[in-house]
């Protein structure tokens, strides 16, 4: 899977804002995303083709969290991206 369109991340007052860019992005989602560190990291990974398993592995290396919690979190974040139409197979 990967992102269907470009989503730029910008830091603002310690928060991370995701901004979908381009015509397709605007048509699909006309707003901004407020991201936590993990979601921003996953978004970065999704800029190139990657599997869910690979994402979990990469996040595990980056953040020291138990695998169970991490798998749930990654799935939740991927689902929310999927629901918004950000992902393509």
């Amino acid at each position, binding site marked *: 899977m990967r992102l269907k369109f470009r989503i730029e991340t910008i830091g603002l007052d310690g928060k991370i804002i995701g901004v979908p860019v381009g015509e397709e992005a605007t048509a699909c989602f006309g707003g*901004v995303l407020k991201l936590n560190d993990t979601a921003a990291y996953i978004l970065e990974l999704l800029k190139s083709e990657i599997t869910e398993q690979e994402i979990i592995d990469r996040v595990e290396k980056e953040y020291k969290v138990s695998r169970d919690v991490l798998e749930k979190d990654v799935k939740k974040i991927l689902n929310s991206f999927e629901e918004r139409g950000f992902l393509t197979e």
Partner: protein
Amino acid sequence: MKIIRKGDEKILGILGEQEVRDLPCRPLRYLLQAQCPDGTLLYNVLTGQLVLLEEEEALFFRKEAPRPLTPAAAQLAKAWFLVPESYEERNTVHVLRKILKMVQGKNGITGYTILPTTGCNARCFYCYESGLEKVYMAEDLAVRLVEYMIRHKGEGPLRLHWFGGEPLVGMQRIDQICSLLTEKGTEFTSAMTSNGFLFTEEVVKKAVGLWKLGRVQITLDGTEEIYNRTKAYVCECENPYRQVLQNIRRLLENHVFVTIRLNLDLHNMEDLRSLVLELKDVVGGFQNVEVYSHVLFENAGAAPIGRTEETRKLLYRKQVELDSLIFENGMSRHSISLPVLKTHNCMADTEDSVVVYPDGRLFKCEHVEKGDDYGHLDSGLVKREITEKFYRTAELPGCGSCPIYPSCILLEYCRGITDKNPYTCRYRADACARSLPEYYEKAKERKKESKKENKKESKKKSEQESPFSLT
């Protein structure tokens, strides 16, 4: 704290509520304050929110915010009126602009400033176009312009702004372009910057119908004698001043919104006061008119004006006085729009607007300068280095402490020719603050009106629903 105007949804959507921490707080730098009989009005230029404060709350902005924050102060902090001492609001403005521009995306070209001609029937001494070669748009070029417009069109109607020279001197091309767009089913609206001299009955009818003219800006330089001398029309008309006033009235009667700009300088600063009073008799009863003053540019025209600090100060004072007079006579519309965070300055730093010269050359700015054409209708964009230079911004030393900074963008290109000096900047900020009580009164009136309407509606509804009639 009572909310009078909600903040901008997009901006607050990005910022969210400020997280309140136990840190020493100070007022955000982008606040405008004014007193009214009900309390203190506080406007946040960053978020666009206007609130009415109780005396206790107002003290946070005159003295210092309590620490730890009281519930009232915390509420103001959540809404970005109070921020931590170390907060860097200028950075927030820059990031917000970047995000909003990205969200807006690209939408073809929807704004056209068209110069049907550089020719003009007036000879104002301060005209920055003086010395420009007189060029008239050719018929075949107007056809190609319409084709270009349709080819590059984005969503929504085209916004045409007729400019010149005096656009009405080239009105045949306006007729032609508007007819062609209508034939091709392309939606558009028009606005114009004109001296108003040629708006006869017949032209106004055509402007409203064929050109779909919604707004016109007309400049007046003084009462009869000063106006006629300044404009120095090339015509046989005995009294252009009277004619233009009559034409303004005609436009208003035909529901065109007219903005009357009073060009202010040393030679006419006293006379403009008399003009405002005369204008009250001519346009006073209309809702579709606004009058505002503007100090003449320093570095433009046949005889560029170089002002001393003293003169700038004097003109600032005169402009404030004139503004009050306009306001007292009910011809100011400042309060309708409060300053908000801007993502661009004008047509020059947006990608959806172009300026079309009568010979088909494309420019970014309506103040056309030799060598600043970036392309041609026939070839499109060819000199990116020129368009790029209009996107570069600059700042003046006073920008850091300016309360209306989010609503103001200075382009690097304009730095040398801009009218911005400490006094005009102060004038703008003060004028915005002065407009708050009027905005508040209007908001109160609107609320009363809508309450009345709601009452009427519910009474009507209950009468309809009730099996018993009270009448």
